[in-house]
């Protein structure tokens, strides 16, 4: 390793378990992509550090109408792209319209949003329905602003005919602190400092993000061949020596269990008493301890760092006696219940098979026989989406840091349907959900979401289990490591001591 005194020319090595599909912001919607694009592109609005409950100005400042239907964004100051050209409202319009028009993975972020240019510095976004989440959405790196001229020259359009992905996977076209040097989806991404960046030069001149599995990450960061490791499990983090600094926070991912409410899928899991029994049979503390450092029990479906999260006191607790009683009430006769789960997902270092096995063992103690049915995500997603799983173990990561993203866990909505929870299956909860969706002040929203989640915990088919710990290990000489629920870490904020 060739360390030089000047940190600006130093190489920073980050280990990450890749789920990288592209570096094109218009198509990217995976954690690794967020991490990379955050360094390459700038967004109109953004978050500061790890606080995702409050949106701050990014490239632009925001003016929002009271009905949360009109959002006026004005570019602040001068911004230049990596090739030296200045950013204008045209670039903003192009970038946002491109995301919408591509119909790529992130296009849903701007569903129903119309983008219009007001003048060279100002862009107006309008929506049909109130969209209080839009500011938080705009902080997503997928909505990073592209150099429209360069992208258009390389096949960029604002509809499906766009062919700029290839170009954006070799060269970046943004205004962020770094530019893309090389991108290999399977092995590594190399970034170099953007010479035309208008902010402070980033701490490292060259950043290498390598695709490495959790266990190896630990070795690498201990041995010094990696500076930052992003996917350590709790146990791995605990076992790290003093040579590294570990930042542990619960992540924004919520791992939950679903029990199908559709009687034609499963008679027993659609039985409310059985659902209750399962809720009471699970030993949540044990699951947390298995998962290790940083992990917390998920009180409700909304993760703790978001507005509207349920306080710890509202969380489900184990009560084996009640479980036995409810089980008896349900008429469960010892038949085996299938638990489907993706076998190849490891979330923040926690293996789904591990959790599934633990749950199986816990439920067995309560008298419930569970048969595990793992399958690769690719295969299992189908059953999950079609709502045909009897019992499923999944997780939900926020698409944007706003509780409205969690309304999907209600009857007739996306995740609700996956658990066989049809529209009208539970009118009380639907009413609570409608109220939560309406918007309002932060306080109002907070209490409405709490109510909704309390009801969900009591009567819903979902069992929030864990918010796995996000353990970031960094060499002692690296500063600025802050976990962010959207982009994991801001690479540009890292610097050498």
């Amino acid at each position: 390793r060739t360390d030089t005194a000047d940190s600006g020319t130093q190489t920073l090595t980050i280990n990450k378990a890749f789920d990288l599909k592209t570096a094109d912001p218009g198509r990217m919607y995976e954690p690794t992509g967020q991490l990379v694009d955050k360094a390459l592109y700038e967004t109109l609005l953004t978050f500061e550090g790890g606080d995702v409950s409050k949106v701050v100005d990014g490239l632009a400042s925001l003016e929002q109408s009271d009905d949360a239907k009109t959002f006026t964004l004005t570019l602040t100051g001068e911004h230049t792209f990596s090739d030296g050209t200045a950013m204008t409202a045209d670039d903003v319009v192009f970038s946002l319209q491109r995301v919408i028009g591509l119909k790529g993975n992130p296009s849903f972020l701007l569903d129903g949003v119309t983008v219009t240019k007001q003048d060279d510095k100002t862009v107006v976004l309008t929506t049909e329905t109130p969209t209080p989440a839009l500011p938080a959405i705009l902080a997503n790196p997928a909505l990073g602003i592209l150099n429209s001229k360069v992208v258009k020259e390389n096949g960029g359009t604002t509809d499906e005919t766009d062919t700029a992905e290839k170009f954006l996977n070799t060269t970046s076209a943004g205004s962020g602190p770094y530019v893309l040097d090389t991108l290999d989806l399977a092995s590594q991404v190399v970034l170099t400092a953007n010479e035309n960046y208008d902010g402070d030069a980033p701490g490292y001149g060259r950043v290498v993000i390598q695709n490495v599995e959790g266990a190896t990450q630990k070795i690498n960061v201990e041995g010094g061949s990696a500076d930052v490791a992003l996917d350590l499990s709790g146990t791995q983090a605990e076992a790290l020596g003093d040579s590294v600094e570990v930042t542990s926070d619960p992540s924004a991912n919520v791992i939950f269990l679903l029990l199908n409410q559709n009687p034609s899928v499963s008679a027993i899991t659609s039985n409310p008493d059985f659902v209750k029994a399962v809720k009471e049979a699970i030993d949540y503390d044990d699951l947390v301890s298995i998962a290790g450092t940083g992990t917390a029990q998920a009180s409700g479906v909304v993760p703790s760092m978001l507005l509207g999260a349920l306080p710890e006191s509202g969380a489900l607790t184990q009560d084996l006696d009640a479980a036995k009683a409810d089980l008896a009430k349900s008429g469960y006769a010892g038949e085996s219940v299938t638990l489907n789960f993706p076998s190849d997902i490891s979330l923040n270092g926690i293996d789904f098979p591990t959790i599934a096995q633990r749950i199986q063992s816990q439920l067995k103690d309560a008298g419930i026989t569970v048969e595990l049915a793992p399958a690769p995500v690719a295969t299992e997603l189908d059953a999950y989406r079609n709502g045909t799983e009897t019992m499923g173990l999944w997780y939900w990561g926020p698409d944007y840091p706003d509780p409205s993203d969690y309304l999907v866990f209600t009857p007739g909505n996306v995740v609700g349907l996956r658990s066989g929870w049809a529209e009208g299956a539970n009118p009380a909860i639907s009413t609570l959900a409608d109220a939560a969706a309406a918007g309002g002040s932060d306080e109002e929203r907070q209490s409405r979401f709490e109510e909704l989640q309390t009801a969900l915990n009591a009567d819903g088919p979902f069992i929030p289990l864990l918010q796995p710990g996000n353990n970031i290990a960094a060499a002692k000489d690296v500063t600025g490591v802050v976990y962010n629920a959207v982009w994991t870490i801001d690479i540009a904020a890292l610097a050498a001591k």
Partner: protein
Amino acid sequence: MSTSTKAVRSPRSRGGRAAHPFLRYALRRVLTSLLLVVGVTLVTFVLTNLVPGDPVAAALGQRAAEDPAIVAQFRATYGLDQPLVVQYFTYLGNLLQGDLGVSTTTHNPVVDDLAKALPATLEIALGAIVLSVIIGVVLGTIAAYRRGKASDHVLRVVSLAGLSVPTFWLALVLYYVFYFQLHIAPGSGRLSSDFTTPPTVTGLYTVDALLAGQLDTFLDAASHLFLPVLVLTLYTVGLLTRFVRTAVLEILDQDYVRAARAKGLPTRTVIFSYVLRGASIPILTVVGLAFGSLLSGTVLVEAIFAWPGIGSYAYQAASHLDLPGIMGVGLLIGVMYLLVNLIVDLLYGVLDPRVRLAS
């Protein structure tokens, strides 16, 4: 009164009575190989379509697949809305133009992906095969020469053990010991992160680094090769040692070896010019086979060492139901397997005058 052993003629004259000139034969082999390749694509195609999952679900994010427009768009882009038969023939048609489709996981043309992954795999596979041929031939010859002696038995045990080690386990153990405990070997990947990829000529980092005169890059690339190559080598060495031993034993039994010794030639000459040359054809055959199985074996090894080669690519494609990706890998490995066989065949001609001169 003579006891006839005319039947002896040339016991290994496989090509001795070739009805066709060698070239015709080679051509026929190429043609059948091509048919086989088509067969490989067909099998992959059918198999991947049997998989119950939906590639759309796998390729799109959790949220995006909810949107029917996005899904339809995706299907149209990748031609998944066509009937299977049409899809297959489209694939074949494109194949003829060197187009293997676009991977649904990486969104890159499969050809480009493979072109990038292949050198990585070749680097370890070639390293392993070269190493194991050298070691295997030396050990096998020693074992044959010392047949029945202690060293023969030791080699027998060692090579059988080599064949018995689960590669995936060995890779982990070596990684644990050499990297985790002893810090001798470098971590995963092809290069340490402080080195930049040498200018691409062959795609083999070691070779490219040398060509570019970057000695330290070469050393780093070579040190990364060490463990994966070692793991792959151990298995093949076992196979080759056992085989070379038998092949050499067979040759040692030949009159021409006895004749060479009766001529008073030094042992070195006898081994290299007579014995090994005689055994070269069967040895070549196993080397070809071993190479094939090496290619297969890289899947696990690459997974463990995070080696960005064909194996990793295959695993990624298979677990994401990436149809073009899987078919591309199947095709590539199939073609390589056939290529290796073809090369072996052609080398027979070089090594065996009876084949070369048959007309």
